[in-house]
């Protein structure tokens, strides 16, 4: 008699813990062959609010870490993913990726994390400046994280795109509330398990699964989210920009109509970090 394997109940990673949706709602996920795979949490606005609260708690501590320390933690994330390639390969296969495609996506994701791990203690030196003002003042500009950032991941490259969006955001000390791909949510569930075993403090990255229609309107209007990034279609962009007005959120969205090549080196770099920092300029007189 063959042993019946134990199936995993997928839970989302929020505030450093694994939770199901407060709404107690789930949606069934089929694997590539069309068979039932699992019930995925259908997170709603209440879960988004809880995730924002978790991110708010983690924010000041994460922003105060040294840049060197943040770099090492992001490097550690890459180590976790490298060590658990097989798990992630299976997760991507659920969404229909071939073994080769999954391996390629995992490799690109690891390399992306390494890229940002190296940026953590350098972007400031390129983006900031000492400014030669025409008066006896010392004047310098530094960057600061914006705070809590809402991200919307696309369905394409469900692991790589999600990591490409969140890595630059946390590199500079922001915290993240991200909605994973709706069509291929399972890699985000497994990514949460890897984040939990990395050195990333709980609450820095919060990953939700569910439907965009449940999350986008609240993401648009939640006053504690300081910026919104990721991929959105024209209608979602309109909703997000309108909702962002009241709290003057920063909105940095890729149009879904112009797909990003997430595998390209152009999908990573300094300006992805820059999109989610504020510039602060300080003046002080020079004198006795």
């Amino acid at each position, binding site marked *: 008699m063959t042993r019946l394997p134990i199936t995993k109940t997928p839970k989302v990673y929020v505030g450093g813990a694994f939770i199901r949706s407060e709404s107690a709602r789930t949606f069934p996920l089929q694997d590539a062959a069309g068979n039932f795979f699992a019930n995925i949490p259908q997170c709603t606005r209440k879960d988004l609010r809880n995730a924002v609260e978790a991110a708010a708690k983690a924010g000041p501590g994460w922003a105060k870490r040294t840049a060197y320390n943040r770099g090492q933690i992001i490097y550690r994330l890459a180590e976790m993913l490298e060590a658990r390639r097989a798990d992630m390969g299976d997760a991507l296969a659920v969404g229909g990726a071939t073994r080769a495609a999954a391996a390629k996506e995992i490799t690109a994701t690891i390399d992306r994390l390494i890229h940002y791990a190296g940026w953590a203690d350098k972007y400031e030196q390129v983006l900031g400046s000492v400014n030669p003002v025409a008066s006896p003042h010392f004047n310098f*500009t530094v960057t600061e994280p914006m705070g809590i950032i809402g991200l919307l991941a696309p369905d394409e490259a469900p692991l790589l795109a999600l990591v490409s969006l969140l890595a630059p955001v946390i590199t500079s000390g922001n915290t993240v509330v991200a909605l994973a791909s709706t069509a291929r949510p399972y890699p985000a569930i497994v990514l949460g398990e890897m984040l939990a075993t990395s050195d990333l403090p709980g609450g820095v990255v919060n990953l939700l699964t569910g439907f965009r229609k449940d999350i986008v309107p609240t993401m648009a209007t939640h006053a504690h989210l300081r910026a919104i990034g990721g991929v959105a279609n024209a209608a979602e*962009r309109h909703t997000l*920009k309108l909702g962002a*007005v009241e709290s*003057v959120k920063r909105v940095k969205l890729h149009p879904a109509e112009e797909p990003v090549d997430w595998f390209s080196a152009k999908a990573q770099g*300094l300006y992805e970090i820059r999109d989610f920092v504020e510039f602060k300029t300080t*003046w*002080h007189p020079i004198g006795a």
Partner: protein
Amino acid sequence: MATPTDRKRPTLRPQGRPAPKLIFGDLWEYDPAPETADPKLKPRYELFINGRWVAPASGRYFDSINPANETKLAEFALGGTADVDAAYRAAQRAFTTVWGRMPGGERAKYLFRIARLLQDRAREFAVAETLDSGKPIKESRDFDVPMAAAHFFYHAGWADKLDYVAPGRKVAPLGVVGQVVPWNFPLLMLAWKIAPALAMGNCVVIKPATNTPLTALKLAEIFQDAGLPPGVVNVITGPGSTGGAIMAHPTAAKIAFTGSTEVGKTIMRSVAGTDKRMTMELGGKAANIVFDDAPLDQAVEGIVNGIFFNQGEVCCAGSRLLVQESVARLVVGKLRNRLRVLRVGNPLDKNTDVGAIVSRDQLNTIQAYLKAGVEEGAVMWQPPCRLPPKGFFMPPTIFTGVTQSHRIAREEIFGPVLAILTFRTVEEAVEKANNTAYGLSAGVWTDKGSRILKLSTELKAGVIWANTFNKFDPASPFGGYKESGFGREGGRQGLLDYCKLT
């Protein structure tokens, strides 16, 4: 304790009492010292479209008045949507045929030329600016106009060095930029907007504020004199709705707005359905924090400069004074002494410190806030001063006994009104300073370097002035956190908001 007593002329002083402080303001009368340069006004200004003076499609004009005496200065074209369309067509043509493809080094030379021509006519511009806006001539002469020229000069040099703006990437201009600027620094805000846009290779459609259109048209004269190709900058005057048309125009690849948070939000809603880029420089309610170890006399100068510069009509004005409890009475006493000698009056007088409020509407708004402050329980104090019989004047005003919930501590007044609050610890100072929806600027006064750096890290504001206030420079990025807007103006960081990465 330097709390001033109710001063009278220091006569008949009984023996043995200490001499009262010498307060010049009430000991001497000042003879008038008006600036007499000719502002060279035309009776009527048309729109500036495609390098030419064009009558508005409406055929209508509106008056701009001198807020210091309520007399008409000149009349200005009432631009509308048809004029905005024409301006965008001209700008788009200039972008595709001339300006967008001109080598940066050549663009630079135009901008240098504009800076030089503005310097040549500096005094004329200063008088024109003061007549139109009510600001003291010493500010328009020593700050607004030279700083405007400096912005053109600074950005000129960037035009052929754009490879250094975004290390690792190439940059390209966006196209036509729509810009709307406020009435508090009419010429300077034009320079802040136009100079970086042009350096990067964009063309511009810009609207000055309805109250203060004069120097925008005079600047257009300089564009003509400089030989700037037609259509590179187009100036449209008119009401707020015309500004709305500029912001929402489909040709605008990017819009840049400086003004109130309320209007900024209206604009953002109007373009939410588009993919236009935006920069917004909106309101503020800056905290100016004075610790007990600060050089207090310097701090008092900084407080005065912070809130009474340009009659307090400054988005980054230090409108909330947070003073450490142990020195609060001392600081308020010194501040009152200082305010007694501020001269409020004719903006054209070279001795005037506080000029006219820009308009009757704005004066009414400020007066409504004074009323609200008193009604909510704060204690108002104004130095005795004689206001001119005509024009929109307001004595410098301070409120003590203010709490964080008072409207005068929460809302941007945009006038010479200071709300004074106290604190005990560093943490309390930071918490109170950050307890606002705004985040444009903040001031810190202390002798302790490590405390300055702690506060400059923890204050949520785009500009931190430590042991100084209200300092500006084209090389220094300016802009806000939170509801004070987004994007930066000035410096390398500001340029990046006028280009796309390729």
